């Protein structure tokens, strides 16, 4: 069992967004969205929609027959000479890796970007055991040096200026570092190259796991994924059980969707297909390859049919890019390595609604995410279902909303569905507002509606229609 996670307070986090964050987010997301739109145009919308539907069906088929595909994947990996481990939760996954690291006397591990490893807090566990672990994706490397988490799943450090990064390199790496992107990249390349060549262990995630041949697929632009899985003598891949894909035909559809949706590239620079360790002497690559199949709450997500499609996610980040809430606050506000709509539904289920019940409400339900998701996850439907879970509870979780709120809702609903109470309420409010009205507006409302007037005035009540209609009817202009 994982320890109970700390509660995520989205509102408090949203009040502490640095002033530079929204602009930086919007610059990054605009670029990705623009590039994506150009490629969708090039492909043609009809083919794009066909791909989305196919991607949805392929992922759904995998998830709804997950046990069989996991077994197929396991057998194929084992046949290819890989070692397969199963981890029920974060602690178990950490133990497996620590055990492996100890057996191989690992002092330094290099890691390619993996949301699953962030989810299980792997870096902390390794460091606590005296093992140095280095993020090698440039963005992750930067935020690791800074001691913070990623602000976006694709470009973790987008919010930092080149001046800040240069200062960070000067401070933490002790090198001359000009505030220029290419120069900073070269510094990182050289530093990390030394580490790649020295590391005893390479850790990766897996974008997909192809059951047909037991193949771990990693997608990067930088080449760090290839370095981590080729250069050190031991490779361990942490892959969520939801990443399984039935076969290479399905994979093809998903690869056509992924890079276009994430960054607006037709394909990322390096898409790697690893089926076990090298099969013969003379091949370069790790001596040992380990795959950890991670549950950590995914099997629980499967239990709720309405929420099951949470697991279709291919981690492209498109929903983050289009989300107006994400664009206003950035990733840190969600308090979880994966943010935006997909992060909200994932975290609320992996961490539970006690801890992450604020996240399903971090959305206006505008629906832009539904339209952009390459695998057609019904994101807003799932958000709505999770809101019900927070407020009313269900078979998986008890209600989180305070009893007083629920009583208020019951009273409110009673008033609203009783026509005479509803009409009376409208008349009473129209009368009560008189001293507070300014020019047809209410500049301040009493709590909790004062939260509205923090941002803008509330319109004055004007329930004039019904009396107008009644006077028309009385005047005989129209029958009722």
């Amino acid at each position: 069992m994982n320890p109970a996670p700390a509660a995520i307070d989205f509102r408090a986090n949203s009040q502490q967004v640095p002033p530079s964050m929204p602009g930086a987010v919007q610059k990054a997301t605009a670029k990705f969205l623009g590039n994506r739109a150009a490629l969708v145009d090039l492909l043609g919308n009809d083919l794009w929609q066909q791909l989305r539907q196919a991607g949805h069906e392929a992922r759904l088929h995998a998830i709804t027959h997950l046990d069989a595909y996991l077994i197929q994947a396991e057998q194929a990996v084992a046949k290819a000479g890989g070692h397969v481990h199963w981890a029920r939760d974060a602690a178990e996954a950490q133990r497996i890796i620590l055990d492996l690291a100890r057996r191989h006397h690992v002092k330094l591990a290099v890691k390619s970007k993996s949301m699953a490893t962030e989810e299980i807090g792997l870096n902390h566990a390794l460091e606590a055991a005296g093992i140095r672990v280095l993020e090698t994706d440039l963005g992750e490397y930067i935020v690791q040096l800074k001691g913070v988490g990623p602000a976006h799943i694709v470009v973790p450090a987008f919010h930092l200026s080149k001046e800040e990064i240069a200062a960070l390199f000067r401070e933490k790496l002790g090198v001359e570092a000009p505030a220029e992107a290419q120069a900073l990249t070269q510094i990182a390349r050289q530093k990390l190259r030394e580490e790649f060549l020295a590391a005893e262990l390479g850790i990766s995630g897996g974008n997909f796991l192809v059951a047909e041949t037991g193949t771990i697929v990693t997608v990067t632009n930088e080449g760090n994924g290839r370095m981590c899985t080729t250069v050190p003598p031991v490779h361990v891949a942490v892959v969520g059980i939801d990443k399984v894909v039935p076969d290479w035909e399905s994979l093809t559809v998903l690869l056509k969707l992924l890079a276009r949706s994430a960054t607006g590239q037709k394909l990322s620079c390096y898409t790697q297909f690893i089926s076990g360790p090298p099969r013969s002497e003379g091949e370069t690559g790790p001596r040992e390859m380990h795959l950890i199949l991670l549950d950590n709450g995914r099997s629980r997500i499967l239990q709720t049919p309405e929420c099951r499609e949470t697991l279709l996610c291919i981690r492209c980040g498109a929903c983050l890019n289009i989300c107006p809430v994400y664009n206003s606050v950035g990733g840190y506000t969600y308090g979880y390595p994966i943010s935006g709509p997909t992060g909200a539904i994932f975290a609320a289920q992996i961490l539970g609604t006690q801890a992450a019940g604020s996240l399903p409400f971090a959305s206006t339900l505008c629906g832009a995410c539904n339209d952009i998701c390459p695998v057609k996850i019904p994101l807003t439907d799932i958000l709505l279902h999770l809101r019900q879970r927070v407020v009313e509870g269900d078979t998986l979780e008890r209600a989180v909303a305070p009893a007083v709120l629920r009583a208020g809702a019951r009273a409110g609903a009673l008033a609203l569905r009783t026509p005479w109470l509803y009409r009376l309420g409208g008349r009473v409010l129209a009368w009560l507002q008189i001293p507070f009205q300014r020019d047809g507006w209410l500049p301040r409302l009493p709590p909790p509606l004062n939260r509205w007037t923090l941002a803008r005035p509330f319109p004055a009540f004007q329930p004039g229609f019904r009396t107008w209609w009644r006077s028309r009817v009385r005047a005989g202009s129209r029958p009722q």
Partner: protein
Amino acid sequence: MAITAQLFITCLADQFFPNVLKGMVSLLERLGVQVAFPAEQTCCGQPFFNSGYRTQARELAAQWLAVFGRTEGYIVSPSGSCVDMVRHHYPSLFPSGSPEQRQAQAVAARTFEVTQFLVNELKVTDVGARFPHKVTYHASCHLLRGLSAREEPKALLHSVKGLTLIPLSNEETCCGFGGVFSVIYPEVSQAMMEAKVRAIEASGAEAVVACDAGCLMNIAGGLRKAHSPVRALHLLEVLTAEGGAA
């Protein structure tokens, strides 16, 4: 042969936008539609549904269906989000295959947002309106995505005499209302609203038009706070401004 339209006025328009409702009545009547108003209607329950109070949402839906279920003909509303609630979420509130669900499906099928009713059912885009001003359009989310009404409001705007339609740079971006969102996460709601207001001001339009009371309350409030002369209007107000009736 007269078409009958039951007015689904929505709680927000009932309390805050009587002119929009009066405009809808006069417009529909001018187009030959016989208008009726089931006075026992209250609220469709969307605020409860969106907040996770499914039980209360079901109670309100049952009440709404009781009122409108005994009517005939079209049910027409000036709010995309309320119509989206009825059409897409009402059936799911009741047990699968139950009589309540079947009723919900039947009534939902004749419930229309007003621009979709005008353009797709009455096949009208030119209602004889005149509004010689520069106008920009905000596409309300539930209307745009829930009801796929991308073209209908624009078709109506394009037919208004003298109206210049200026594109809004963030036309399809949510304004930050989101119902309860505006009071649960007011800082974020404010930031989104301010982005919308900035874009409206930058467009050079004299008025911003939308088809949802929630958006209009949010945007109008934001424009007032920014001391902007730009007016926030419901599309129906533009269609009945001059040349139309009342």
